[in-house]
């Protein structure tokens, strides 16, 4: 007996859709978020995302915490490049209280932020490789991310959620070991990265998987609020570092790589090129490192050195005031944006002069551009959808805040 026997022709022609749950915990989602896919065979007809699995109410918690304690919250937004988030937050508060950070601190921040960008892009691109079946590149590159983490560790003592820097500068000057490690990284990493590029960039198999999949036009990308490498891959040369320079980015020579079609390959290539540009920026910053202090003269916000706390009255008072969150901040509202690993990371802060922000809103690039995901994968294959997701670099921490 045939299973089609008792069905009319119309019934048979009616499309039969399957529902497929991609996530919440699926190895290919690299984080916890769910996609409910409506499938026609292996073609995606429709998709709906569910987010919020690791929502931690940062915006509410921030309304209760003194300013210096919010840095640890920002660590956990995009945890692949936490130093950028930390610096962004410090700069937001510095903007509010009107502090100019010394040039040396700004250059040091640039070095740290660019290292973080490299680490972020390395993870993303290595994982694009993994999702297309090329595990080798991933194993090559991850030791280099470890070396970047070693540099963070040498600077601030932490590796992943760094809590690096302070409001008003950095906690301490780079020591010799930091310089040694950065120089060693700059000398050796390009060779390894070149190897990775050779593995994938012109690889026929990889090429066939990523070209023309998950494409988005520049107009659509802008309408969906894309920023960062994903927007640049679509051909819009918007980069916060150039448009609204912060932390002395105007002193450095670098180019903004742009793509053409906004497909997975372009996103991959834009990140590849940005890694080279970041290396270039770090070199320039090291060569032109200005002399001077690594913190601004803001005793009300910048924790004094421990020796001073034990031996000097003022230092003890300021230490106590900062730790108890008693420093006065002006009233006002600030929006400050930095170019995060994934795009424009904005901090919108309303201060009513109290010890904690009255309102703090994080503009998380992931959260905004992930909306476009169904549109990008509709009509494509499931295997392409996985690659599209990993090339968009959706980080669950940033998605849910």
């Amino acid at each position, binding site marked *: 007996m045939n299973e089609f026997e008792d069905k009319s022709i119309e019934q048979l022609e009616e499309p039969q859709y399957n529902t497929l749950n991609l996530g919440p915990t699926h190895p290919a989602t690299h984080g916890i978020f769910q996609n409910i896919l409506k499938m026609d065979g292996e073609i995606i007809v429709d998709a709906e995302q569910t987010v919020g699995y690791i929502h931690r109410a940062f915006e509410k918690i921030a309304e209760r915490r003194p300013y210096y304690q919010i840095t640890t919250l920002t660590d956990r937004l995009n945890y692949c490049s936490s130093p950028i988030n930390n610096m962004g937050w410090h700069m937001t508060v510095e903007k509010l209280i009107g502090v100019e950070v010394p040039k040396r601190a700004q250059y040091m921040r640039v070095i740290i932020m660019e290292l973080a960008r490299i680490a972020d892009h390395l993870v993303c691109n290595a994982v694009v490789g993994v999702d297309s079946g090329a595990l080798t590149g991933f194993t090559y590159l991850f030791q280099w991310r470890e070396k970047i983490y070693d540099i963070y560790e040498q600077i601030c003592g932490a590796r992943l959620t760094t809590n690096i820097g302070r409001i008003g500068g950095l906690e301490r000057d780079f020591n010799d070991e930091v310089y040694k490690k950065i120089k060693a990284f700059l000398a050796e990493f390009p060779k390894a990265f070149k190897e990775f590029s050779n593995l994938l960039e012109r690889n026929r198999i990889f090429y066939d998987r990523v070209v023309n999949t998950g494409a988005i036009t520049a107009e659509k990308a802008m309408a969906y609020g894309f920023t960062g490498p994903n927007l640049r891959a679509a051909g819009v040369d918007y980069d916060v570092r150039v448009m609204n320079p912060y932390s002395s980015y105007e002193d450095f020579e670098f180019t903004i790589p742009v793509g053409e079609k906004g497909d997975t390959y372009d996103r991959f290539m834009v990140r590849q090129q940005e890694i080279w540009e970041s290396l270039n920026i770090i070199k320039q910053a090291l060569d032109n490192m200005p002399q001077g202090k690594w913190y601004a003269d803001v005793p009300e916000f910048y924790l004094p050195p421990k020796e001073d706390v034990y031996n000097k009255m003022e230092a003890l008072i300021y230490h106590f005031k900062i730790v108890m969150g008693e420093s006065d901040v002006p009233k006002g509202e600030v929006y400050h944006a930095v170019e995060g690993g994934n795009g424009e990371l904005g901090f919108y802060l309303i201060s009513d002069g109290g010890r904690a922000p009255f*309102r703090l809103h994080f503009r998380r690039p992931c959260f905004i551009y992930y909306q476009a995901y169904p549109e990008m994968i509709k009509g494509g294959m499931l295997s392409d959808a996985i690659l599209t997701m990993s090339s968009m670099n959706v980080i669950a921490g940033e998605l849910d805040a």
Partner: protein
Amino acid sequence: MTTINNEYIVNKVQQHFGNALKEASESYGILNIEISAEKAYALIDWFKHDSEIKASFLTDVCGAQFPDLVGKEFCVIYHLHSFINNIRIRIKAFIPKDNPTIASITPLFPAANWQERETFDFYGIVFVGHPNLKRIVNVDEMDYFPLRKEYPLEDGTRTDKEDKYFGR
């Protein structure tokens, strides 16, 4: 060619929207425009399509609550960005507590979709005309709006953590 700066934009808005423009100021380099809630959609639409300003990128939508401002307890804040002129504009629309509704700008910017859902999720601000206004990061069963100021962050029944010892 006229230089497009904040002053110029304010004058232009004044001409087009007259009394709907409540206040214009500048804070930390960004132009602040306070507009009546009914005109917020029209203003953003106009900014997007104006041939000179071209603020065609929506950076951010978020909400805020000011319990002390009677009659305008809630606020929806939009950040627009003109890539061409490199000008950021912040638009604020205040709405009352008993009727927290405002027109959705999702038809103008698809990017606003989730951001408006998030604002609804946390503040209960209803965006009229939104295609799919439901909670986004919190569970659907939640029966309150957590970012509102009347919900304290810490458990109010605890007695071992008195605010006065923490300078709060």
